[in-house]
């Protein structure tokens, strides 16, 4: 993002946030698989696929924008 300052790209922080949140939500969804919460459409197991989506997106952002040292 910055030519003058060499700041870690904001997209890396976005990826980190999505990765951590995705992991927590995915694990939480898997843990409640056999006894889902009393929410509407709980049978769709939204935390599992939504958490999985966040993990994938987070990984993509983290890998693509991982701060590397300037050569």
């Amino acid at each position, binding site marked *: *993002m*910055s*030519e*003058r*300052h060499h*700041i*870690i790209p*904001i997209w890396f*922080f*976005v990826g*980190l*946030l*999505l990765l*951590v*949140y995705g992991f*927590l*939500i995915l694990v*939480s*969804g898997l843990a*409640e698989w056999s006894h*889902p*919460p009393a*929410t*509407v*459409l*709980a049978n*769709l197991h*939204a*935390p599992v696929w*939504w*958490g999985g989506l*966040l993990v994938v997106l987070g990984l993509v952002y983290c890998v693509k924008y991982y701060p590397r040292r300037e050569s």
Partner: protein
Amino acid sequence: MIAMMAVGAPTTLVHLSKVDLVIIAFYFLLVLAIGFYLKRFAKTGEDFFLAGREMTAWVAGLAFVSANLGSLELLGWAGSAYQYGILAAHWYWIGAIPAMVFLGVVMMPFYYISKTHSVPGYLQLRYGSEASALSAVTFAIMTILMSGVNMYAMAVVMKVVLGWDINFSIWVSSLTVGIYVAAGGLFSAIFNEVLQFFLIWFGALLIPILGMVETGGWHGMVARIHQNFPGQDFTHMWGPMRSFADNPMGIHWTGIVFGLGAVQAMGYWTTDFLVVQRVLSARDIRSAKMAPIIGSFFKMAVPLIVILPGLLARAVLPMHLFPASGLEAGQHSYNEVLPLMLARYCGPGLLGLGITALVAGFMAGMAGNVSAFATVWTYDIYRPFIRKAAPDQHYVSMGRWCTLIGLIVSIGTAYLVMNFASIMDYVQALFGFFIAPLFGTVLLGMLWKRVTRAAGFWGLLAGTLSSVGMFTLMKLDHHWVSVFALSPRAQGLAQDMYQALWSCVTCVVVTVLVTLLTKPKPDHELKGLVYALTEVVHEEHTRWFHRPVVWGAAALLVLVVLQIIFW
């Protein structure tokens, strides 16, 4: 901290689990870490107040939209969608997109080429200190008061939704924002606004997805709404506005097109420094022009996570919602529609993500207010009127102190509102007084080189006073609503639209009259500031798909298609 957040009160809307609390705590830690990390880069005035003017179009564009996408905006407009139906989407479409495109294509070159650091800064260059000081002082006061009002309103929401203590919500969120903005300046504010953008989308998008699954799609939702509320139209945007009596907002299409689209939206999106500051941080003029246009596409999509949940609530919630005033025990207000829908579909984990999105929206909104306040106070009030020629470092220190002082004043305002709740309505109204006339003053200044220094000041003052006058008269005697808003049926939002329209007209008329009676500035003082004397960068040599005007036209085309679909 966790003990304060532990929610077990039976009256709260949702109950958080441990994983939800971990998700919220991680957000607070991350924004503080980013603030401390960015502190080393915010050394000069340009770094601290304008993020070094090196943001890409995408970052500036997302921050531009995100600064406006506070949690109260989300909760309030979801509530308005429940109350007024899809009419509320006008504030996201005709009430935003043309103004954003206009900012990018027409106005941004002047802001950028003049190298101004703020909107009052542009007025200083174009007109002189009188109009600039009027604009700067009113903006600084209103921004900080609004920050306090929002702070209190959000703390109340957190109390109702989660059972959190009001003092805890106010102090923890304010201190966090104060630390990271004072450390990293606009760098921190923009970074966190981009984070917030992703959080809001991923935290709220599940509601419309699962809502559509539950209702069987758009047609299923409409059928359920008709079944639950027979004889009422909540799903058409223009049809019910043929007369004031045909829609729950009591508004005519002229109010939406001229009051909202042509004046209020233009005023907000092109002259409110809170949002314009994000675009001024762009690294070059093409990025500055593209940023609001990129933002316009995302803004167009926001009704998906704000308006649609409000409509879905009409279709699926087993209870009816009511206005916040006069609620009885066990009833819920319109503003609680988003948390109610969140609780309906989201269990542990997802609930934490949704609540974090609301908290993040609140904090990013507060950060936007204090960073804009610090810039306007330091550059447009302190430097020209109090200490003119200090070293750059002095102004950076002033900006850091201003951030903290601004937050303390905001907290004071929040407690003031807590004790005198009626102040809240008036502070929110006050903010609207200045935006519409300011648009008239800035636009005339950019497009007509004849406009004089005196005309800029008197036009702005007359427009503002006329707005205050209309507001006061309509509050004192309902008869005036028929006069200014053209119908006694006009509700609050409809009154605001016509008030904005007439105040802008007053500003323009007074500006033109005073211009004709006073002496214009010489041309050499206006170079780079007005259309006739500015060499705007042309884009003949740029590929068509890199041209802002092409993407601006595409945004307007999508807007027209959306209007036809939901006519």
